[in-house]
Structures are given as C-alpha cells and as structure tokens.
C-alpha cells in the first residue's frame, strides 16, 4: 500500500517508531486539534488518555453520527459500540469465558495449532512469509476454535477482513454486510445445535435471554477484536525482535523473560494505534483544554505508550524485553479494556516461544526498507514479513 501523504500524524510510523511530528505534538500539549477537523481532538498524553478511557460516563463509545447527521445503524451485541448498563450486561455475559484460567485450559489447542503452522512455515521454504504461513493462520484458527466457527468460513472471513483492512472501502461496503452475514448464520446454526465454542456456550447458558442477533454481534466483536490484532502483533513483535538483535539474544538466553517480552512487545508495537473514537457527552475540561459536548476524541494509544513521559526515565521509546510489566495501554483501559487480554497474552507467548525454539537462526529475509505496512487498517501491521532461518 502506498503511504498516502495525507495520512494523519497518529497513523504514521517510521517503521516501528513514532514520527518526529508526533513526538513534537506530544511534547507541546497533551491533546491537539488535528487539521481537517475530524476527529475534533487527538490525545497523545498517557495520563489524559487514561482519564478519558476511565471516564465512560462522560465519553461515549457509541459511533458518532454520520457527517450528514444521520445516526449510525444500531449494532446489537457489539461490545465496543455500546455504553453503560447495556455494555456491562453484554460484557458480563462473556467475561466468565475469558478468564486467565479458562484461557489456560485452551493452551493445548493453541500449542497444537502453533506447531502445525510452524511445520507449514518450514515446508514453505526460505524465505517464507511469516504473516501468510504463520501469524494470520495461527490467530485465525485459534479464534475459529474459540467461537466455534467452521474452518471453511475462516478463509472467507479473512478475505473479507483483508478488504476491510485495506481501509479504502467506504463504510457501507458490501464486504461488511457479507461479513456480518457469516455471524448471523453461525448464531442460527448454534441455536439449533449448540456446540462447545463461545456461540454455543452463550446459547446454552443464557437461552432466550440472548438473541441470535446478539450472539452474532458478540461473536463478530470477538472476531474483529481478535484476528487481525493478534496476527499483526505477532508479525510486528517478531519484526521488532529481529530489528533489535541484542534483545532477541537476551530473550533466547533467558526464555523465562518471555512473559515480560510479550508485555513489552504489546506496548512497543501497539497495533491499535488509536482506540475507537469517544464522543464527549458534556463539556469536559481536560489537559488544559475544553472538549465540547458532541466533539469526537481519538486517543492515541501508540503515542501514549511510546512518547516520553514523566515517569519513564526517558526509556519509553526503547525496546526492553526485561522491563517490569507496567501499565501500558496497548490493550485499552477502562470498561472497554480488551476482553481477550488473557487470550492474546497466552497466544503471543505460545507463538513466539514456538517460533524461537524451532528457528534458532531466524532473521529477516528482506531489507526493512522493502517492507510495506498497513497504515490505514484499524490496526497497524505489516503486509508480508519474509523470514529466513
């Protein structure tokens, strides 16, 4: 994809690093009004990001009205696009299924999928595209098992997902409704014969208290939140390690650092550059500015995680796999904090451990300057990542 010159500053990266303009804006003020007027504000300061994301009473996650003033279509079951009591009702339906303990029980399934994909990657021959043969299928197959999606649907979904990720599709592109259609079908099939996955579990446990539309919406939320975010984090995480041979060597020497490395890589690559927009419900004074009721605010998690701030001893921009796991924002903050956090952490650990063990000589199969990045997708990522071993 060509890096369009009009890419907003919070979407731009210098390979894995914040661009100088973003660092300057962050040094000048906690939030600013970007040119173009939409969103009305971009927040880069980590304290102000935390304050806004923690303040769901005054900042709504419902999608802002269309430019012509029309209200966006309701989206039943969508965790990210609901507020207040409705959001906590949905979240409480699914939270018990995503605990650290529940996810640990899925570890053997994840390990099996990772092993299979390592085989496929090796057989693909050198250089092989890590995204195509490993990162995307690992995250997709694990998700399919988790929600009970037939594997055939998965390739179709990833095709539609790629379409969305191109960032060029207009909001109501047909690919979007086809995508939703898959989840509607899944919900109807699971209602007739509830299986072991998330969809079946929701139906078995909650019966008619949860509608097919909601089951579909929840599964779509989970798929949207999961597949690309995890795949891109694996890809960029590997890239970050390969670009920092000292850190990679340290991690190989001390595999017990893997849990810390996962946290550090989540923070460092922050694939969700900005969380979904929040709309101020009332006038809010924050960070020395006045956000007016109705204004749309974009919180740049990438800036918050990577720009220097008071408490970081000047190290926020450095990759340090031994760093004490801190309070980074890569998985969000507040009531919409990533539902799949335990799953994402475990998946990343299993995938990265497997990859490093299998390929002691893992290295980039191309120059960094050859790599093409997905800057317009909802999550930042690399198109292809050729690797050698």
């Amino acid at each position, binding site marked *: 994809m060509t890096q369009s010159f009009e890419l907003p500053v919070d979407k731009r990266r210098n390979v894995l690093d914040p661009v100088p303009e973003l660092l300057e804006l962050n040094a000048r003020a906690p939030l600013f009004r970007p040119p173009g007027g939409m969103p009305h504000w971009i927040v880069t300061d980590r304290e102000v990001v935390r304050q806004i994301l*923690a303040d769901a009473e005054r900042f709504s996650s419902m999608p802002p009205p269309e430019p012509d003033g029309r209200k966006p279509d309701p989206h039943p079951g969508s965790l990210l696009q609901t507020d207040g009591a409705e959001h906590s009702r949905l*979240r*409480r339906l699914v*939270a*018990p*299924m*995503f*605990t*650290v*303990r529940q996810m640990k029980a899925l570890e053997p399934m994840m390990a099996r999928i990772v092993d299979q994909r390592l085989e496929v990657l090796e057989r693909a021959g050198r250089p092989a595209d890590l995204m195509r043969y490993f990162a995307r299928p690992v995250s997709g197959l694990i998700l399919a098992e988790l929600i009970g999606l037939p594997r055939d649907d998965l390739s179709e979904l990833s095709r539609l997902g790629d379409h969305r990720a191109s960032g060029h599709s207009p909001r109501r592109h047909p690919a979007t409704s086809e995508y939703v259609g898959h989840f509607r079908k899944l919900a109807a099939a699971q209602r007739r014969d509830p299986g072991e996955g998330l969809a079946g579990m929701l139906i078995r446990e909650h019966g008619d208290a949860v509608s097919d539309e909601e089951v579909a919406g929840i599964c779509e939320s989970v798929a949207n939140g999961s597949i690309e975010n995890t795949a891109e984090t694996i890809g960029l995480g590997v890239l970050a390690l390969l670009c920092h041979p000292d850190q990679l060597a340290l991690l190989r020497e001390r595999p017990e650092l893997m849990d810390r490395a996962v946290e550090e890589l989540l923070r460092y690559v922050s694939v969700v550059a900005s969380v979904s927009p929040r709309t101020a419900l009332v006038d809010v004074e924050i960070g020395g500015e006045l956000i007016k009721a109705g204004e749309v605010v974009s919180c740049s998690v990438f800036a918050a995680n990577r720009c220097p701030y*008071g*408490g970081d001893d000047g190290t926020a921009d450095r990759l340090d796999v031994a760093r*004490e*796991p*801190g*309070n980074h924002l890569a*998985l*969000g*903050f*507040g*009531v919409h*904090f*990533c539902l799949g*956090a*335990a799953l994402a*952490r475990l998946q990343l650990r299993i995938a990265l451990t497997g990859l490093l063990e299998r390929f002691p000589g893992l290295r980039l199969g191309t120059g960094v300057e050859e790599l093409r990045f997905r800057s317009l997708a909802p999550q930042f990522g690399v198109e292809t990542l050729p690797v050698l071993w």
Partner: protein
Amino acid sequence: MGIRVDRDSCVGSGACALFEPEFFDQSEEDGLVVLRAREAGAEALPALRRAASRCPARAITLVPSDGQGSAGWDRSD
C-alpha cells in the same frame, strides 16, 4: 497493609490474577476479581502498587492496615 477490590468496577481483565496470583484470582462464576488475601506485608507493597496501577478498571486500592485512607492506584506510576 490492606487490599481492597471493587467488584462493581472490575471488568474481569485478569491482569491482577495473571501477574500477582498470590493475591488475586478470578471467579469462575462471573470472571470478576476475587481476593486471595485481604492483608499483605510491607514487602509486597511494590508488587501490589503495580497491580493496582495495571488494573484497567482502577478497581484495586491499597489501604493502611487500620483501614483508613488509600495508598491509591496512582502513586505507582
């Protein structure tokens, strides 16, 4: 020092249970935080402060053992 959790705010992220399993767990029923200990010695303070600062729902607070005041999630940044 005392450890307090607000289950009404907890979003079940599991961050506490993952990093400090000695003190925190998640309920099988609702996925929300369950305390494994309500009191901890001073040596646990740094770890507990980090747990409080990592909590995405600001649901963990530390209080002096006499139960007065708060050692606050925000001190640990």
